[in-house]
């Protein structure tokens, strides 16, 4: 406790006093790690605890966004609308965000989420396909929601190309555009370069965010690199609960931010308590970087493929890493979970 009180801002970083907005995605990205089995009571407990810790934005949806409950991505054990309702009933200050992937969810899903209490729409596309989000970004703004563009698998294209796509989302009305390292494949240099490009090229009033995965053990480092480039919003997940090796752990991000002098409004010790006392007990396994998760980052494969690949590996008697490496070679993008069984079947025939 003493350290908590005495080292704040003591490192002399130029960040002193700069604020950024933290979005906790435990109840959305964490859905992948829980195979989309979150109960309303669990959602309420997690959201309530994050809210008390001062987390300003809480995202809740199926892992693949609104409408993601499916054979392809896994069925939700509880309708996500029930989860949004539970979160809305549990928070006092935090705003509720939802994710929508055009092509999976539809505009009506967004309307329902807004009616249930969501006020931030995060509209996600593969990093080269921003124009399929225009319809939904406009719809979000028309509903009075804050609109965030979410450019996934952003490691796959160069910073200048990413900026072009970010401008499409900005032009549609997105107030923030995120650099999303869905594969956890970025190095610190990669993350910094993309954030710097967007910060320099988008309008001054447009915010930039970063969403990191920990497959190469760089989620916190990439988030800090993004902060040094002036990123305005950062995603975390409590205890890292998320796809692949998990996300940037909210409690670590908050602790390190405090040490560096960034202002998040989140109480560091409470954030630790949420992770250990509320989230850890419902986790089927801790977020570790095992060989399959490491392969995601190494091969540049969408993090939520992890559990699907492990299940297919077992079903067809092949190595999960071989499946993931082949998916990487084929430049498969987020949403193509059906390719996992297809590739596993092919590999099992070859064997």
């Amino acid at each position, binding site marked *: 406790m003493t350290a908590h009180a005495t080292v704040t801002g003591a490192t002399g970083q130029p960040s002193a006093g700069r604020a950024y907005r933290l979005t906790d995605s435990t109840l959305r990205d964490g859905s992948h790690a829980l195979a989309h089995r979150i109960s309303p009571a669990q959602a309420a407990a997690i959201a309530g605890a994050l809210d008390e810790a001062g987390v300003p934005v809480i995202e809740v949806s199926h892992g693949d966004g609104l*409408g993601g*409950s*499916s*054979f*392809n991505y896994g*069925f939700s*054990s509880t309708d996500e609308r029930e989860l949004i309702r539970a979160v809305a009933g549990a928070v006092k200050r935090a705003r509720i965000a939802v994710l929508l992937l*055009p*092509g*999976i969810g*539809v*505009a009506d899903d967004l309307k329902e989420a807004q009616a249930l209490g969501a006020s931030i729409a995060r509209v996600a596309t*593969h990093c*080269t*396909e921003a*124009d*399929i989000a*225009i*319809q939904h970004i406009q719809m979000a703004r028309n509903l009075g929601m804050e609109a965030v563009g979410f450019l996934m698998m952003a490691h796959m294209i160069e910073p200048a190309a990413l900026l072009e796509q970010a401008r499409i989302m900005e032009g549609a009305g997105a107030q923030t555009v995120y650099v999303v390292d869905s594969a956890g494949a970025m190095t610190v240099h990669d993350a910094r370069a993309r954030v710097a490009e967007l910060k320099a090229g988008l309008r001054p009033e447009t915010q930039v965010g970063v969403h990191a995965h920990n497959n190469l053990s760089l989620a916190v480092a990439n988030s800090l690199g993004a902060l040094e480039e002036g990123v305005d919003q950062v995603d975390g997940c409590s205890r890292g609960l998320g796809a692949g090796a998990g996300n940037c752990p909210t409690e670590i991000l908050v602790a390190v931010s405090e040490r560096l002098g960034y202002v998040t409004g989140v109480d560091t010790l409470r954030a630790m308590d949420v992770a250990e006392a509320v989230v850890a007990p419902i986790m089927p396994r801790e977020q570790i970087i095992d060989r399959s998760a490491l392969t995601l980052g190494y091969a540049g494969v969408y993090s939520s493929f992890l559990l699907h690949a492990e299940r297919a590996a077992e*079903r067809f008697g092949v190595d999960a890493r071989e499946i993931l490496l082949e998916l990487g070679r*084929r*430049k*498969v*993008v*987020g*949403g*193509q*979970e*059906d*390719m996992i*069984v*297809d590739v596993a*079947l*092919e590999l099992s025939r070859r064997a």
Partner: protein
Amino acid sequence: MGNENNGRTPVAVVGSGNIGTDLAKKLVRSPSLVPVAVVGIDPASDGLRRARGWGIEASHDGVDWLLANVERLGVRIVYEATSARIHAANAARYEGAGLIAIDLTPAAVGPAVVPPVNLRAHLDAPNLNMITCGGQATIPIVAAVRRASPVPYAEIVSTVASRSAGPGTRANIDEFTEATARGLETIGGATHGKAIIVLNPAEPPILMRNTVYCAIPADADRGAIDASVRAMADEVAGYVPGYRIKELAFDDGPFQTPGGSAGARVSVFLEVAGNGDYLPRYAGNLDIMTASAVRVGETLAAERLSPAGSTIR
């Protein structure tokens, strides 16, 4: 009707973009249809230039020109390859001119048709809609499973090359997911349907892929489902040569689907290569639309317009 058509039914194509031009090229080969006009609105259109090269009259004066020349050309069927908005405006004019419309846009003015599944039920309709590329690829498979088993829930994932997804699809991707899901239910026979579309920008571009998942009872006759699905795929391949089943697998649940708990699931992985007519071979998603539309026209020509039909005008 002139003898120069050798008994083939004269048809017109409205829209001289990628789809209209690919369609015109396929129609040139048809044994029972003959494209007598392609109309667009852009004098510089490559599609109009190509059509003339294939010996088809082409005009950039749009639908007004077509309707003024229907009698002279003997047109019986018009293919709409523009946009939903334009077709909504044109549909009544076509019907007024006595033309049967085959609509390749999402306008859905007329009943949705999938040639091997429900076309015969709508042969008298003045306007037929081709739904979506994903629908043409996957609804036959759902219907084939349904012939052999109840399907409380069907879900499809269509993955197409980014380059083959045109501005219309991109601007309103919900139209794809909603129209396809509806078709899985109303035409495929699933109690509940869900459709997903994914765009993949890989270079070289990927072929169109479709995965069809059907929830089935644990005790469903898997041999009968397998045989029914393979027979249906052969039937589709009869008019879309690049259509094939890549994999077919059964697995056991239970699965908690929107159609209730299901004991098992059949997954069918399909690949659709284009014919490389005007569109590149990877664009199987566009090819299956034009090839299916030709099939609809040929069926109409055989069953509705001939032999009685050919003597009316």
